[in-house]
């Protein structure tokens, strides 16, 4: 029987306004509350406690085993550094830093840190490779050998069976084994990535000897190879589509999709207040019957009364003002069966009115969750992403094509370059901090990309053109007053690099060695030479009768063709047994034709300017040595200053004229005679000797750390000494 008195007097909820106090009391009264505190508090904090616990356990075991590991490591390190002349070498690579321009800016007092290095240490031009192209030169930098031994001659190499270009540095193929279930084709294995660059990078030798190396974005390091150190791959890392960079552009201006080799223009479709579009992704390899690539859909809503828009993708909203880049956004392509391919891109809102126009960078491999390995160890890219946020991973991350084809303006391109550069700087300084002993090497690409695109604004004779007359439309615009600020872009770029050098020097010990190298210099690119047209007009390349010319030799009559040009500097013989429809007999005919082409092309003059368009030619049999000489272009063209292979020539197209004006924003170049475009070598040490070459860096480093230089290396050891 219940006693009614037990209900008692109803009390006012005294603590109703004191919830926080009750919580504190709860936590402070373990005897009464311990059973309840667990999950309540635990849920929110348990994961952090778990982290703490795991970290503590790891720390405990690490500390416990530390002495043993350290003894082994210390012995190894002592051995490694016993004969070393320095504990640390820092290499800053500035792609395309030009010695003449650098010297001029130093003279004008604009580069104080480089001036100091020149005064107290070393400044020399650094001989580049044949041909002077970044992938070739950096491959020689890291292997210490000529291209005949590392097998890289250009960005592209010809597929001799199909007469089509393929990436010279790596070959990516899908999984060989596939399980077919209905309309699905499920790959039973990982895609294969085969490195095509040969030769062993210097950091492999150093790593084997116990010298730790941090390697950041050195070109032609994709796919990353195992060694004792950390590496983030650089130039030639593909985007998520497997290309070297395909951006997308979304507009209300056009009604139909337009696809080119490096871009896709996708029209917006209006639905209510929002405009819908998609980012094209990789091919849908999971679906055997797929006709379209994978797509990541998004919607854009212009914000009323503002020059802003809100972008929605994957349930996330990004607000963008006109002329503004977004942060890196994660892009997901669903392939079905729960499979998603993930990447990252930045958006740039070009305009809201009168037309909505949005640019999306090529979809980069997500460093936090890489679809392909882009670092060694694989966790290094994750580490960097966790430490500093998402970053560009694409080899050629700065989208020169978007500016070249008018989809981005100068400012938007420049902003993109510096956003990427800032990421790179953060990576470099982190690597510098982590590499107290060993080698820290980082390559900055911005110097190359900005000079390619902004050389047109340099005044006559200001660059290292030797007084060539600029003849492209952009410079005329600059002369009309549009390019006042643009004239200073390259100068400011060099100053930025100088400041970076200054900060680097501050963080280095006095006895450490600092090397600043560039792979080549720069010259103006005013007129293009269509080598395929020249070959056609001189009877070496035949077109099918009546057929117009197409991209990638589409209309070439191979049965009547003896030579063709592909890429930026190379002419290839249509050699029987090597090319699928070869006509030139190996042996005497081959040698004769090679020599004939060299002789005829060397000194080729542009009738419009009376200037020497081709200064030198290189016979591959004489220019290269090594086991991969057979893969080289048979003739390498050394263009004169102001000239380069024309855009059409590089793409295997035959045009009516051999010479043409370069009217693109891409107005500076270096794919010419290597003598005209040496790189730079700066150091805080005195480096003696003559004719320093980029091939010398690897053997010099091995020598600095007391290692024997392998006999196959072509470079020579620099006599370097501390002041």
């Amino acid at each position, binding site marked *: 029987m219940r006693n009614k008195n037990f209900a008692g007097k109803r009390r006012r909820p005294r*603590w109703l306004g004191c919830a926080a106090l009750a919580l504190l009391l709860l936590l402070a009264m373990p005897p009464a509350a311990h059973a309840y505190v667990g999950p309540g508090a635990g849920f929110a904090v348990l994961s952090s406690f778990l982290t703490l616990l795991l970290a503590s356990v790891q720390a405990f075991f690490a500390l416990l085993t530390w002495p043993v590991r350290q003894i082994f490591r210390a012995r190894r390190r002592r051995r490694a550094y016993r004969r070393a002349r320095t504990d640390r070498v820092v290499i800053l690579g500035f792609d395309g830093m030009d010695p003449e321009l650098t010297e001029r800016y130093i003279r004008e007092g604009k580069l104080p840190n480089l001036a100091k290095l020149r005064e107290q240490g070393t400044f020399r031009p650094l001989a580049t490779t044949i041909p002077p192209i970044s992938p070739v030169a950096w491959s020689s930098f890291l292997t210490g050998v000529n291209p005949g031994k590392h097998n890289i001659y250009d960005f592209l190499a010809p597929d001799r069976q199909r007469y089509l270009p393929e990436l010279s540095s790596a070959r990516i193929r899908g999984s060989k084994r596939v399980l077919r279930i209905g309309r699905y084709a499920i790959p039973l294995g990982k895609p294969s990535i085969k490195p095509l660059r040969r030769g062993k990078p210097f950091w492999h030798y150093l790593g084997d000897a116990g010298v730790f190396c941090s390697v950041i974005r050195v070109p032609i390091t994709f796919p990353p190879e195992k060694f004792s150190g950390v590496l983030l791959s650089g130039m030639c890392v593909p985007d998520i589509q497997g290309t070297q960079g395909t951006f997308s552009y979304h507009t209300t201006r056009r009604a139909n999709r337009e696809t080119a080799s490096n871009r896709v223009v996708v029209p917006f479709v209006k639905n209510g207040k929002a405009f819908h579009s998609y980012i094209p992704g990789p091919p849908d390899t999971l679906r055997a019957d797929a006709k379209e690539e994978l797509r990541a859909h998004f919607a854009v809503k212009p914000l009323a009364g503002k020059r802003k828009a809100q972008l929605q993708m994957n349930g996330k909203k990004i607000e963008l003002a006109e002329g503004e880049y977004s942060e890196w956004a994660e892009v997901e392509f669903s392939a079905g069966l729960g499979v998603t391919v993930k990447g990252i891109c930045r958006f740039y809102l070009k305009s809201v009115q009168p037309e909505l126009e949005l640019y999306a960078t090529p979809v980069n491999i997500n460093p936090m969750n890489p679809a392909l390995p882009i670092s060694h160890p694989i966790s290094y890219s994750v580490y960097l992403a966790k430490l500093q946020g998402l970053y560009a991973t694409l080899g050629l991350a700065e989208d020169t094509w978007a500016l070249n084809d008018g989809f981005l303006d100068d400012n938007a391109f420049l902003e993109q370059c510096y956003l990427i550069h800032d990421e790179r700087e953060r990576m470099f300084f982190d690597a510098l901090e982590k590499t107290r002993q060993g080698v820290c090497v980082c390559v900055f690409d911005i110097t190359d990309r900005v000079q390619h695109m902004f050389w047109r604004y340099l005044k006559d004779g200001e660059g290292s053109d030797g007084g060539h007359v600029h003849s492209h439309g952009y410079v005329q615009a600059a002369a009309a007053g549009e390019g006042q600020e643009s004239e200073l872009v390259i100068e400011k770029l060099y100053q930025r690099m100088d400041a970076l050098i200054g900060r680097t020097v501050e963080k280095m010990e006095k006895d450490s060695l600092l090397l600043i190298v560039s792979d080549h210099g720069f010259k103006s690119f005013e007129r293009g030479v269509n080598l395929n047209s020249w070959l056609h007009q001189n009877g070496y390349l035949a077109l099918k009768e009546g057929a117009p010319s197409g991209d990638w030799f589409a209309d070439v009559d191979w049965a009547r063709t003896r030579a063709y040009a592909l890429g930026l500097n190379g002419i290839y013989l249509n050699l029987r047994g090597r090319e699928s429809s070869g006509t030139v007999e190996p042996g005497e005919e081959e040698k004769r034709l090679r020599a004939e082409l060299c002789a005829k092309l060397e000194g080729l003059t542009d009738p419009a300017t009376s200037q020497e368009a081709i200064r030198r030619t290189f016979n591959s049999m004489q220019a290269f040595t090594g086991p991969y000489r057979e893969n080289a272009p048979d003739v390498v063209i050394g263009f004169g200053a102001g000239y380069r292979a024309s855009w059409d020539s590089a793409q295997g197209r035959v045009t009516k004229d051999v010479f043409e004006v370069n009217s693109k924003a891409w107005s500076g170049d270096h794919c010419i005679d290597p003598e005209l475009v040496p790189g730079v070598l700066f150091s805080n040490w005195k480096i003696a000797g003559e004719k320093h070459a980029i091939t010398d860096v690897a053997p010099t480093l091995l020598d600095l750390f007391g290692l024997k230089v392998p006999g196959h290396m072509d470079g020579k050891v620099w006599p370097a000494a501390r002041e």
Partner: protein
Amino acid sequence: MTALLSWMDKAFDVLFRLLRVLPPFAVLAVFSAATAVFALVVVRWTSDQQAIRRVKDRIGAHVLEVRLFPDQLRVVLRAYLSLFGHTLLYLRYSLRPLLFMTLPLLLLFVQLEGYFGRSGAPVDRDFLLRVTLRQADALPEVSLRLPPGLTQQAPAVRIAAEREVDWRLRAEQPGVSEIELRAGDSEATKRIVAGNEFTRITPVRESGGLWTRMINPGEANLPAGGAVEKIEIEYPARVFPLWGWAMDWLVPYLALTLLGALLLKGVFGTEL
């Protein structure tokens, strides 16, 4: 507030009656899932999600740093320090959702403890009834009246120093019954559950404030002015056997809640 607590008692009684078709472990799983969802929503809306993501990334980076640069003693030690610092920072960011979650979850756990924490008094085995009086001089006056099915196994033990009277009782059959206590003019009752039936069990009924009422759900507080201060029954703990391990309900509950939260965090877009 007392009314709210009574309402909650009733609501949970109804809920458990509906869920009685399920085995206790499944009922526990249902509550774990509900807790996970609740926690995810609270964390999502009350915490600085970006800051949590940032600090978690930093923690991850420093863990990787130790693996990536094992030769660099200074780097490794600094990584550990940073790891510790960022974990504390993570705790700081967790504090706000924790404050928002604690009261509702406390109310929930008290209710769940009523169902999952104890088993009924074992049938045909002795158990203790412990009564604490407000004044020791009332000890001789205390009498106990048992309903049918409950028997007293030994004379009452009076401990003057503790103001306590203990009875050794035995249930002859399973079921819910009510005992009556009389001390002078005061009367008090207490519900007793015998057998292994899955029902609410309140081991303690005592006088006190709202806090006392909250942590002893199912029965109202004893009156503040009455002679009896506290009535306590020694119920055995209910255990959940799992792969040969007998564990308190909190262990599987917590594990399932965490698992649920980890599985569902993507759905709710919550950074934990």
